[in-house]
């Protein structure tokens, strides 16, 4: 039952994106496309703004995933070492902001004072590291990098840098994959930071454009080329399915990436539940 409830809207969206606009309007699209064509996708492909925002989103997702994962791993490994002096204090240093958050306004002011407003960094940096991922990764290191191994390495003359890069990192490939996926998907799906920090439309990620199109149901005429009335009429017809096509385009990358990391992913989520 529930599976159907999940599947049906998704199928409906995919079908609609391939149907003709009038069929969507009249409600004759139920499960399969009516009047199948790929006009909507062609429009997406030719729209300069949509392609730019798609590429922006890809950039944000990749950069966010790499920076976020690097920060997480760098913090998680030392904090997982039981021989680190002041370990508890340092752990709490990272945990306190999750218990008590400052809210949007002070964060906005800090971003502004740092001069990051209206730059790509404003999207990537502020939420770069998630403390939840840090806790999960730390737990992973505690479980899967045995203390004995590190001690043996130390006796063999390896310093902390060497044991981090040559022992801990290779052993933690699964959790690194999970982190990359978590951060990439989070960046891909986020719109609010962009909404708040960006005014330059060339930097907009896809989700923000989606928000304008889907939720506010308005479309910027420059997104679709052409200005005369006949063209506009055709555009209205196109607009309906364009919305569905946009949804499909925005859903695809995470759904494609997901099966590749699924195994690790479930493992990662489970470690999280072990705390």
């Amino acid at each position, binding site marked *: 039952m*529930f599976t159907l409830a999940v599947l049906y*809207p998704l199928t409906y969206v995919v079908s609609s994106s391939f149907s003709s606009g009038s069929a969507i309007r009249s409600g004759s699209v139920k499960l399969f496309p009516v009047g199948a064509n790929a006009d909507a996708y062609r429009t997406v492909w030719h729209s300069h703004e949509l392609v730019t925002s798609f590429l922006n989103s890809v950039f944000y997702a990749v950069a966010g995933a790499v920076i976020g994962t690097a920060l997480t791993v*760098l913090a998680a490994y030392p904090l997982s070492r039981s021989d680190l*002096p002041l370990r*508890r204090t340092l752990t709490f240093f990272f945990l306190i902001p999750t218990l008590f958050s400052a*809210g949007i*306004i*002070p964060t906005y002011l800090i971003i502004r004072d740092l001069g990051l407003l209206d730059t790509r960094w404003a999207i990537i940096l502020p939420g770069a590291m998630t403390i939840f991922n840090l806790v999960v990764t730390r737990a992973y290191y505690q479980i899967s990098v045995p203390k004995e191994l590190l001690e043996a390495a130390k006796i063999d003359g390896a310093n902390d840098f060497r044991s981090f890069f040559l022992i801990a990192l290779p052993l933690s490939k699964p959790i690194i994959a999970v982190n990359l996926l978590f951060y990439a998907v989070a960046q891909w*799906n986020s719109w609010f930071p962009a909404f708040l920090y960006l005014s330059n439309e060339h930097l907009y990620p896809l989700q923000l454009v989606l928000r304008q199109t889907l939720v506010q149901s308005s479309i910027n005429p420059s997104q679709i080329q052409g200005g005369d009335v006949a063209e506009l009429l055709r555009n209205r017809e196109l607009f309906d399915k364009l919305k569905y096509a946009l949804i499909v385009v925005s859903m695809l990358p995470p759904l494609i990436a997901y099966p590749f990391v699924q195994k690790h992913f479930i493992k990662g989520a489970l470690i999280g539940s072990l705390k």
Partner: protein
Amino acid sequence: MALEQLSAVQRADTAPPDKPGPPGPRKRRRGRRFRRSWQLYVLLIPPAIYAILFLYAPLYGLQIAFKNFSVAQGINGSPWAGLTYVRQFLNSYEFWTVVKNTLWLNAYQLIALFPLPIILAIMLNTVRSRRYSRGVQMITYAPHFISTVVVVGLVVMLASPDGGIINQAISAFGGNKQDFLSETWFRHTYVWSGAWQTLGFSAIIYLAALAGVDPQLHEAATVDGASMVKRIWHIDLPGIRPVMITIMILNMGSMLTVGFEKVLLLQNPLNLSVSEVIDTYSYRVAFVSSLPQYSYAAAIALFQSVMGLVLLVLANFLARRVAKESLF
């Protein structure tokens, strides 16, 4: 305060328990330990810089809740205003509306969405065919990867009164078309679209806990003639109780903060009377109104953070009392 106590505990931890010794050598030993692990601290530098810049600096900036913040004077230069803005919020006309809306929306969500993943997990766990249950899992996770914008877009489109497929179905069965974003429906729409999105993913944790239940218990119970329902009730549910309580505490603690972006997306002028929550109100005061009142908005957010912390501590306390389980 808490930090000082913690480091005191830490100091007690690091000192070797069997050699009390005078303070001098102990200090030196600690110094040596620091010097020996300097490389670990080097690794910690980038994340620490991140935390200071993007997590602690905003906390420091929160002081504008007690100041008359002006853009020209900056965070440090603005004059103090004491509790003016906190008081302004507590006395404001909107105070009870937004607090009530926040609590209603989140309490509804908490109660409606808490049992569902447990039921799904138990059902998946009792299904014999592994392939079937894997397939169902795969599909039910999928919405977790769909962004809030898209989910809200779907809701708006599929449930729209003019031509949305849900309303078409309703009128086909002879019902009246409904505006699902109206005052009457807003809360239901919000909560059940959330169910659609999170259910499969929340079930993972329970599935893991169920996998940890000893299968011998089930075998023994089957031999003794227990029905499937009885086995679920007496074996599975007690087995996942700790996980259930942990999740419950976490949900209660984040009760005031979740869903800001989604509420903002679903909000429209017609449902404002039920959809205006503390977060969106604070956001509106700071960024939408023609005269941005940063200090007032920060005071509102501060109120919410304090309430959230109180709720978390309270939930943890209750859990410890009632169920002898707690998070910290």
